[in-house]
């Protein structure tokens, strides 16, 4: 039968080594009192260890039956999850047992306990139950549950791992902020105002006086007279469909653990997706580094929100560089209607020509806008001036690289919104309002 070996604890080692040293001293003197002390200590330690080894000789996973129940498999970052395990000892027992269900660092137990230290006899089952609050988005693994049989005097222990791992997906919360606070209303009401604007469309919108910069082909000759010349204004169709293009390359590692650029991007993406779904728009997600990690086609409604939430939860860093040109090419292959593509990236290492892919997007009626964190704001402010200067010095080349990326994108006509990292939510709300109204991007 499978069993684990006895591990001698520091306490056990200490007793045996101390006992042997004392025995050596006793043997030099041959005094009975000086022999009795080490004999007592060594007899106690060795008897206890051998007895513990004998009584738990087959200790291992085969001693137990277990079942997880009432376990959350998907938890929102602002919610709580629950874990419960029933364990039954089918081995001979009884033992002093320590039962422990290992938690990822991103979980904070708020109720119950994942650890139990108890005297456990074979007849009584053990139930471990606890509630945790996730501190971090992502995919996490709970378990395997570990059972440690303790020697009562602390000289040694045996360990058994029960293979009952459980996957938990912690998803971001899609924003449900009131759309009316950020969407400017037009004369045709909230449903139409953000969908249309004056521009290079085909539908007639209104007449206005001719200006010297206007194209003469737009002059409305029938309405014009000798004193005034009018031009026609057409409506340009806005892009109610949004594709969130999320860079998961190694450049997104910038920032302290748990608050990296990637997490800022995910939060921003979740806010944007939430706002879009609330406004009955269709929104999709393309997760990309140098290849597609995940693609969620644009969709709307509560089902769409669920699919997107899960996809945002699964996002993780990739150890590869970002290939924006490839990402845009693949995006346009997958999009069937004119779409606003919102890129969340640090723009740290944009390689290859961008004019072609961006131009191809425009040709198909898509628009690209980039959202980029200010590098310095990804890190918490340093406690002292020396640390602040060191951080500034270390980030300077990174910031220069990012600035180059921003310039390159702007040079090909892509609007870039930069934001201070703690304000990603506000920046995304502003961006969302902009995608609906096509006003000036701040």
């Amino acid at each position: 039968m499978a069993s684990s070996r006895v591990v001698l604890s520091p306490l056990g080692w200490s007793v045996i080594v101390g006992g042997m040293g004392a025995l050596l001293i006793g043997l030099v003197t041959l005094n009975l009192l000086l022999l009795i002390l080490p004999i007592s200590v060594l007899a106690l330690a060795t008897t206890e260890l051998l007895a513990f080894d004998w009584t738990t000789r087959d200790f291992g996973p085969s001693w137990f039956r277990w079942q997880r129940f009432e376990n959350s498999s998907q938890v929102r970052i602002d919610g709580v999850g629950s874990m419960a395990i029933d364990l039954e000892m089918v081995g001979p027992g009884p033992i002093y047992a320590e039962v422990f269900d290992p938690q990822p660092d991103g979980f904070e137990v708020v109720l119950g306990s994942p650890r139990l230290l108890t005297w456990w006899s074979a007849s009584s089952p053990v139930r471990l139950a606890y509630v945790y609050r996730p501190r971090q988005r992502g995919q996490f693994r709970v378990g395997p549950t570990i059972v440690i049989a303790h020697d009562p005097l602390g000289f040694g222990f045996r360990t058994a791992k029960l293979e009952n791992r459980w996957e938990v997906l912690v998803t971001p919360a899609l924003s449900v902020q009131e759309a009316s606070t950020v969407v400017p209303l037009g004369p045709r009401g909230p449903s139409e105002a953000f969908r249309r604007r004056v521009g290079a469309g085909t539908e007639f919108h209104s007449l206005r006086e001719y200006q010297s910069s206007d194209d003469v082909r737009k002059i409305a000759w029938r309405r014009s007279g000798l004193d005034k010349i009018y031009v026609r204004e057409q409506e340009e169709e806005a892009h109610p469909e949004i594709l969130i293009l999320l860079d998961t390359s190694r450049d997104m590692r910038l920032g302290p653990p748990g608050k990296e650029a990637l997490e800022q991007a995910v939060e921003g993406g979740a806010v944007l997706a939430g706002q879009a779904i609330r406004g009955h728009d269709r929104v999709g997600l393309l997760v990309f580094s140098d290849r597609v990690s995940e693609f969620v086609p644009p969709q709307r409604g509560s089902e769409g929100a669920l699919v997107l939430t899960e996809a945002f939860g699964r996002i993780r860093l990739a150890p590869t560089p970002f290939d924006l040109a490839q990402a845009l090419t693949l995006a346009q292959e997958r999009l069937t209607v004119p779409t606003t593509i919102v890129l969340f990236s640090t723009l740290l290492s944009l390689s290859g020509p961008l004019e072609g892919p961006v131009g191809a997007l425009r040709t198909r009626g898509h628009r690209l806008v980039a959202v980029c964190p200010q590098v310095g704001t990804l890190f918490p402010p340093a406690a002292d001036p020396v640390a602040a200067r060191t951080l500034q010095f270390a980030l300077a080349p990174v910031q220069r690289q990012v600035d180059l990326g921003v310039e390159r994108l702007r040079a090909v006509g892509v609007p870039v919104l930069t934001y201070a990292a703690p304000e990603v939510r506000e920046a995304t709300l502003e961006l969302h309002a902009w995608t609906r109204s096509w006003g000036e991007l701040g």
Partner: protein
Amino acid sequence: MSERVWMAGLFYPAPLCVGVLVLEQYSGGGFTLPLGFLLALGFGSAVGFGLLRHPVWEGLGLVLLTLAVGVPIAYGPAAGEGWLGLSVGVLVGVPFLWLEFAWREDVSPGVRILALQSTFVAGIAFLAALATPGSPTGDPAGWQFLNSLGNALANQVQGGADLLSGTAPGTLPLEAAFNPVFVALGGVALVALVLSWISPRTALDEPLPWSWFKFPLSPTLAVPLSDGLELRDGQREALATRTRSSSPGTVLSPGFGSLLVAGLLVGAFLGLASVVPALALLGLAVATAAAMIGVARVLSRRLTPLGGLAG
């Protein structure tokens, strides 16, 4: 009185007993020998009970005590009765400088064992010195004691060398040193040392639940079970019915059996040593070797793939 004072109270009597015996025989009405003994006892106790924890004071005290022992001895009988008495007094009180390591619970068991054993060794050596002739009468009493101690140790080394070379030893003063009161008080200290481990504990020295010990419950209920947590009924029920720590229903603590067996083994050794000492020594050697082999086998057993963290 606090628990540590009670604990220390079980370890102090044995070395105190030896000190009193030496004072009784060698102080000769002078005050320097008792003064030296009290100085060592006082300094050791002050450090042990945490009254004198500053490293500077500790270091200074140790230097002064070392000088008090070493300088008069270096001068020999010429140092005079008073200084040699002070030197011997400090020397006899020296075990109190490390006795704290035998009773302090925050010290590892191995160190505690060695601290107690070395206290016993010092006590036995002083007892042996009391029974060994020293320098001729006329020398200062302190010098006579130091001579006796030196002779006892030299004879012990010689006797040990004789034993190892296969010849019959002349005398073994430390082996022969015996004082029933010291043995009884030493036994009390030994029992106190062993009993201090008997309460169940984990490998990390965390108390295990048992009926004589009020075990703290698992760290639970950090947050009250409120509706705000949005738990399902099943989850709430699982939380409400989770297992709490429980102790064994037996009166005696687990591990008591080993203590009993260890007691029987010691009794058997004592019985054999009183009847056939040579056989007792042989038995001790064989039993020690067998025990160590057994422990080594237990610890070196091969891991199966299913068990153990290292699997």
